[in-house]
């Protein structure tokens, strides 16, 4: 029974990691850039929703505030691309990595000025209570996280495989010049994917905030989501979810079975192992570069 309980709580956490990782993978899939500020996007999305919902800020009803927060984050993502990242067009990946790390610092600072550094809780209707299924306790919020994550992953996967826009995004990442020749507005596509990833980050943030308190430094979860994205293999949406679940499940098991101190290490140790033995993740798409 304990094992099942650990598994369930791990799955819910893992879904949050998976959602953040989805944000990374979306951007990576469409632009070959990596957004190191994705965790901070998630934090920002949660705080935007909190600012709209909670009684002593705006006091809007949750079911109005949540979609509004998603829209705000999508617009923010698009504007960020429009004003900042588009100017890096044609520069190296490392420049983008460093830029987004700096962006994370700035977001954390601005959010800290607006909402303060105390942990706060979102007044979410999802955080209502627990189910008890034959000894296994499952929170309503946990269930919502799992359902939304799976649905979102499926939708995005279909979006990339089936729609014209999704295919255009894939083409833009695979060969920018050729995509231009095919009439794809590469820069606008890139802006859209940043908007989409902002929206996904907002969903992740709202779900994460429904599970418990949120604070400015929650953005550092992004690093664990990184581990998830790498374990799953950058560039694969189901892989990101899978990696998130693996990281999420490993954590409670490691803290249960190993002595204290080793449990935080487990996800990173796994990450290093994956990088050493399968450098491009478990769901790899990489072939060796030939000249």
């Amino acid at each position, binding site marked *: 029974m304990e094992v099942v309980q650990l598994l369930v709580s791990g799955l819910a956490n893992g879904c949050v990691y998976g959602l953040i990782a989805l944000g990374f993978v979306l951007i990576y899939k469409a632009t070959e850039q990596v957004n190191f500020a994705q965790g901070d996007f998630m934090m920002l999305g949660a705080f935007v929703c909190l600012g709209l919902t909670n009684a002593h800020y705006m006091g809007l009803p949750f079911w109005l505030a949540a979609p509004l927060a998603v829209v705000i984050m999508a617009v923010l993502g698009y504007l960020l691309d429009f004003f900042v990242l588009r100017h890096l067009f044609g520069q190296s990946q490392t420049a983008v990595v460093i830029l987004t790390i700096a962006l994370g610092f700035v977001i954390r600072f601005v959010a800290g000025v607006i909402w303060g*550094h105390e942990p706060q809780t979102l007044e979410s209707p999802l955080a209502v209570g627990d189910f008890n299924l034959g000894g296994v306790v499952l929170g309503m919020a946990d269930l919502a996280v799992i359902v939304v994550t799976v649905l979102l992953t499926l939708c995005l996967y279909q979006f990339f495989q089936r729609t014209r826009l999704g295919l255009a995004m894939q083409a833009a990442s695979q060969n920018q010049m050729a995509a231009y020749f095919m009439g794809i507005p590469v820069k606008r596509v890139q802006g859209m994917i940043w908007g989409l990833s902002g929206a996904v980050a907002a969903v992740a943030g709202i779900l994460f905030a429904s599970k418990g308190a949120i604070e400015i430094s929650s953005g550092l979860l992004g690093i664990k989501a990184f581990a998830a994205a790498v374990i799953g293999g950058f560039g694969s949406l189901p892989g990101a979810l899978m990696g998130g679940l693996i990281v999420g499940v490993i954590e409670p098991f490691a803290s249960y079975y190993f002595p204290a101190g080793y449990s935080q*290490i487990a996800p990173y140790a796994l990450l290093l192992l994956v990088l050493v033995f399968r450098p491009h993740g478990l769901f790899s798409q990489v072939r060796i570069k030939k000249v």
Partner: protein
Amino acid sequence: MRIHFKTSYDHDIRLFPDLWSFGVYAALLVIAVILPWLMDDFFLGEVTNVLIWAIAGLGLMLLTGQTGQASLGHAAFLALGCYSCIIFMEQGWPFLIAFPVAGILTGVVGTIIAIPAIRLHGIYLAIATIALSILADDIIVLLDPITDGVSGKFAPMITIFGIEIERWTTPDRFYWLVLAITVLCTLAYRNLLRSPLGRAFAAVRDSEVSASAMGVHIARTKAAAFGLSCAITGLAGALMGFYAGAFNNETFSIVISITLLMMIVIGGLGSIHGAFFGAVVVAFLPQFLSMAKDLVGGSSVAIPGLETGVFGMILILFILFEPMGIYGRWMKIRIWFELFPFARKDMFKRQKSYLKTERLR
């Protein structure tokens, strides 16, 4: 405008291109040596801090600026250098032995870590090194019997030939020690760039494919770059330990790694000057901000995250408007004056490249 008329191949790789630049650096060195008589102890301490950051920056510059491998985990090597040097000294080793041995140890460990890491490139390497930086914190706690974990260690007194050096009681001696190490590291770096290995580093940075076509062993070159970079970083870490006086597992956090990388980007990737310019920015930014806050008349309440926020903002502006960093801007201004009426706007235009994925082929 100075014209270099090169008559032999040695002219191409001389340490100083001409007498004038030799004179400039010699004058700079003289000023640096007599600095303790010109400044009070507080500013001397700050300058020492700049020099230590500059050494660490040189270490990372060798890897990132010279070989093109971005590392976000160099705080782990700072920690290794710091802990090993001070643990050796606690075993009774003199500083003059413990310090270089700590550097060599860090270099060897760096090379061993590099062997799997060199298969990764770009983003994967950055992520692996982030993981390394996070693991270092936990490993220091787990190795409690050796490292004293969370409670931390205190740096002992340095004794060289009977001269006692300590950061607080004799800041001038500590400054000279750091200055000497800085000069040695800079010379070593400069000489390395003139050697075949340094050229191989640059070749790997610019194109791995063409480098291997020219007979450069990619993996071996990257491992060497990692090792040398870690060795210099380890030395800087030991000095940081002595500078701080006390340190524990949180001293060398991932924020330090990120700061270090941002520092060399702000300074200017791929140049020795860049490491020093960046170090000045990093070391003086907190002082500058607190002075600015006093000037505005704001309260003395610390705003958490202000420093990193402003630092991030500066970095974003640099990447957008001056990707070559402070050194790049300095070069542009200098060349503009040297060529005075003939400088053109497009002279530094970078060739843009179109991206092609490496995932599918």
